[in-house]
């Protein structure tokens, strides 16, 4: 018998999760919304640049078909084309809706939406709200959810962490198992369908441009429960991030757009202050290697060159992984245009980039890969849906700037109603639907951790994980290095069994929760590494010098990772290319 009022659990309250919640509440469903952080503090707040939609308000002849083509081409043809087509078609209506919700988008003098140009397109297609578009969009959706919450349609579980899905004897999802991050209580919650919107996985790389809770832990837990994880090896590394002690903060491409120059000292141990090193003692390596494009080579090329200078030529500033991005020579008018981003640098580094060259390095930024979903956003586990950065759809081998916020909202808008549809025709569960068994499994894992007499510090293991992943599985990949990385991950998983928590208390124990996530990060690390190891080609963000070309014959395929006998097993699935025939992706002519 089908449930009278479908009960849906949404895990994650970034743009994707909140979008799904709103659609379900609107359709009369009941939603329980789970999030580690208060949803208003989700990682989506970090997005600055904007959100794409082909509204063509600039009279340039832009169209949703062009947006569709740019996205597929930018993704090096690895994305299934049907959902990309649907997303780009819905773009304009999504922007209108956000505008109606009160997002303070920038305006033209006539009071219409203003648009700017972003990478990978010739059109001004990006709507923006100052330099904080993600924050403004997240708040608009958060406010709508608060409204539904005050009307009793949504129950929030903020400060609760999803641990796993509850699966019945037939492998059908019947709810979730979650942990209260204050009382550390482990509980299961019933649901007819669940939607996973848990975002990215930057923490697997130690430091990234992502927020702290972007560990990929939930996605990994589901993968270990039988969900396919797809295209994990496709990781976007942004060329210019500000290396920090705790994170890598994004430094926008516009700094180079306005004339910023990238260089390192000829002598890496040059003790002079950067600004007093004369021209002759500086190496402007991008300008030297790419006389035509100079500092404005495409993102992936800039990223690879900086990596080479630091790790192969050993020319990083003071032996550290950093190069200079210099805007100190620019005119005051140009510096003014960069005001916002220069302030970020000044605030966090303490130096004034108008006077002192900025120190930057590429930073792990975004995962194109994620949970495998069908065109209804459902994973291969019945009743488990996924949306946002946590799923693999839309971006293929490389994401275009400002397309992620759109894909999050689109994915949530599809997943919500589809989960409702699924739930309405779900047969009733037999017995307890697997709740007791799942709770026991998680409680046992917890007591194993808390009672472990070992000697390993989880934060140190995490540091080693991050260093290994950043070294072998980001910008430039070698099969030997990937093998080494996998061996290291196996070693870390082994040492994990010997982990010792300095805090064994049962109240707001953040290091305990983190240590739980670390297990899942290690497992997902292996998926990323294995996928990269087996993909002997170069496509989008995945670059192997030993296999410089894209190889459509062998690898125009979705990577499907399944958890078999404690390790990832990789198979491949055909890509939906029914609308646009794959063609070479050429940077030099752009």
């Amino acid at each position, binding site marked *: 018998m089908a449930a009278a009022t479908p009960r849906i659990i949404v895990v994650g309250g970034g743009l994707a999760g909140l979008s799904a919640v709103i659609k379900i509440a*609107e359709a009369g469903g009941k939603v329980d919304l789970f999030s580690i*952080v*208060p949803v*208003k*503090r*989700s*990682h989506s*707040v*970090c997005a600055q640049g904007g959100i794409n939609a082909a509204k063509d308000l600039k009279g340039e002849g832009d169209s949703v078909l062009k947006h569709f083509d740019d996205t597929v081409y930018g993704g090096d043809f690895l994305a299934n084309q049907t959902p990309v087509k649907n997303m780009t078609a819905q773009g304009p*209506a999504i922007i209108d*809706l956000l*505008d*109606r*919700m*009160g997002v*303070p*988008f*920038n*305006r033209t003098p006539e*009071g*219409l939406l203003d648009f700017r140009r972003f990478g990978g397109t010739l059109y001004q297609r990006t709507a923006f*709200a100052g330099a*904080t578009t993600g*924050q403004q969009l997240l708040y608009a959706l958060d*406010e*709508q959810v*608060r*409204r539904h*919450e*005050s009307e009793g349609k949504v129950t929030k579980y903020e400060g609760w962490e999803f641990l796993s899905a509850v699966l019945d004897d037939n492998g059908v999802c019947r709810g979730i198992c979650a942990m209260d991050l*204050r009382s550390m209580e482990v509980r299961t919650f019933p649901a007819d369908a669940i939607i996973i919107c848990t975002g990215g996985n930057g923490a697997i790389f130690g430091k990234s441009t992502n*927020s*702290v809770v972007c560990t990929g832990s939930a996605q990994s837990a589901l993968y270990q429960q039988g969900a396919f994880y797809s295209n994990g090896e496709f990781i976007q590394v942004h060329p210019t991030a500000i290396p*920090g*002690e*705790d994170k890598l*903060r994004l430094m926008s491409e516009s700094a180079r757009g306005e004339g910023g120059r990238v260089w390192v000292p000829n002598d890496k141990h040059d003790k002079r202050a950067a600004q007093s090193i004369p021209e002759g003692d500086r190496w402007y390596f991008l300008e030297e290697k790419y006389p035509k494009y100079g500092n404005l080579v495409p993102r992936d090329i800039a990223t690879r060159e900086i*990596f080479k200078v630091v790790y*192969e030529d050993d020319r990083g500033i003071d*032996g*550290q992984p950093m190069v200079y991005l210099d805007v100190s020579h620019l005119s005051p008018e140009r510096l003014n245009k960069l005001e916002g981003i220069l302030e970020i640098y000044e*605030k*966090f580094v*303490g130096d004034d980039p108008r006077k002192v060259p900025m120190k930057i390095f590429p930073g792990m930024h975004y995962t194109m890969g994620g949970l495998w979903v069908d065109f209804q956003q459902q994973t291969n586990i019945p009743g488990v849906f996924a949306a946002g950065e946590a799923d693999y759809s839309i971006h293929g081998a490389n994401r275009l700037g400002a397309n992620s916020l759109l894909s999050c909202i689109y994915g949530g808008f599809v997943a919500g109603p589809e989960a409702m549809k699924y739930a309405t025709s779900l047969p009733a569960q037999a017995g307890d639907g697997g709740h007791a068994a799942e709770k026991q499994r998680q409680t046992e894992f917890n007591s194993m951790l808390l009672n472990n007499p070992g000697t390993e*510090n989880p*934060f*140190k293991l995490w540091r080693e994980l991050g*260093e290994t992943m950043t*070294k072998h599985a980001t910008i*430039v990949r*070698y099969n030997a*290095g990937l093998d080494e990385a996998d061996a290291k991950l196996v070693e870390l998983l082994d040492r994990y069994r010997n982990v010792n928590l*300095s*805090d064994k*208390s049962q*109240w*707001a124990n*953040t*290091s305990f929760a983190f240590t739980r996530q670390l297990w899942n990060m290690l497992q997902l690390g292996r998926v990323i590494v294995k996928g990269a190891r087996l993909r002997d080609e170069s496509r989008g963000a995945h670059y192997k*010098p030993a296999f410089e070309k894209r190889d459509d014959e062998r690898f125009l395929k979705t990577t499907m990772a399944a958890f078999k006998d404690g390790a990832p097993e990789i198979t491949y699935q055909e890509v939906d290319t029914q609308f646009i025939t794959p063609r070479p992706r050429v940077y030099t002519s752009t």
Partner: protein
Amino acid sequence: MAAAEVTTPKHPASGRTITVKVKRQRTPDAAAVTETFAIPYRPNMNITSVLGEIALNPTTTEGKGTTPIAYDANCLEEICGSCAMLINGKAMMACSALVDKLTGPDGNGAITLAPLSKFPVVRDLAVDRSVLFENLKRVKAWVPVDGTYDLGPAPRQFPQVQEQRYPLSNCISCTICMEVCPQFNDATGFVGAATIAQAKLFNMDPSGAVLKEERLRALAGGGGVQECSFAQNCVQACPKQLPLTEAISDMGRDVFVQQVKDFFRR
């Protein structure tokens, strides 16, 4: 290309350490204690990286093994609003608080960390600030859209309106304005500057204005806008430089006008 040889970045061995005194509390009811840590100094450290360093080696200066410090943080770039705490006694965001600016003129001063004082402590530096989200419900800080289906474009809005609304929409819900406000306490029940600013934001939206009167009534009477004593601490402490006092006086005026209207309607 040969396999890249990567070494862990070596930090200049300055040998200098930073002294950090942390006010800690194991549970909401436990007594507070202070623990002192010595952290190896590195250039450009912020307070969240200091806390991360303690987690790597949770040992006090007396050599006593202790637990990593509990605190809230997510974005680490002063946009999610999680990490507000008292740093050297001042309410600040930990992620944008740089060590170099906190150790005094000679660089040897100890840094003190404590939880915000006006909110219930959860553990150590983590506090419960859910009161703000409840206040936002009270003033209906949202635009009541008819539905999320395609209803075409929103009304036009001049750039001047956007330019006024945008700064208010930058509020990160950090609650620092409430922490520093002398009127924010149990006696007054004052909603605080952040909530009043959000009410103004939605009253200025062409569609959000449909709930304007309800918002003004929610801000009338006890705990409402009248509790403000114009100490102006909020506007000075706000990490996002919101025009808070301006919002409060605008809303104070609107609330008064609404009250007069309501009086004559009776």
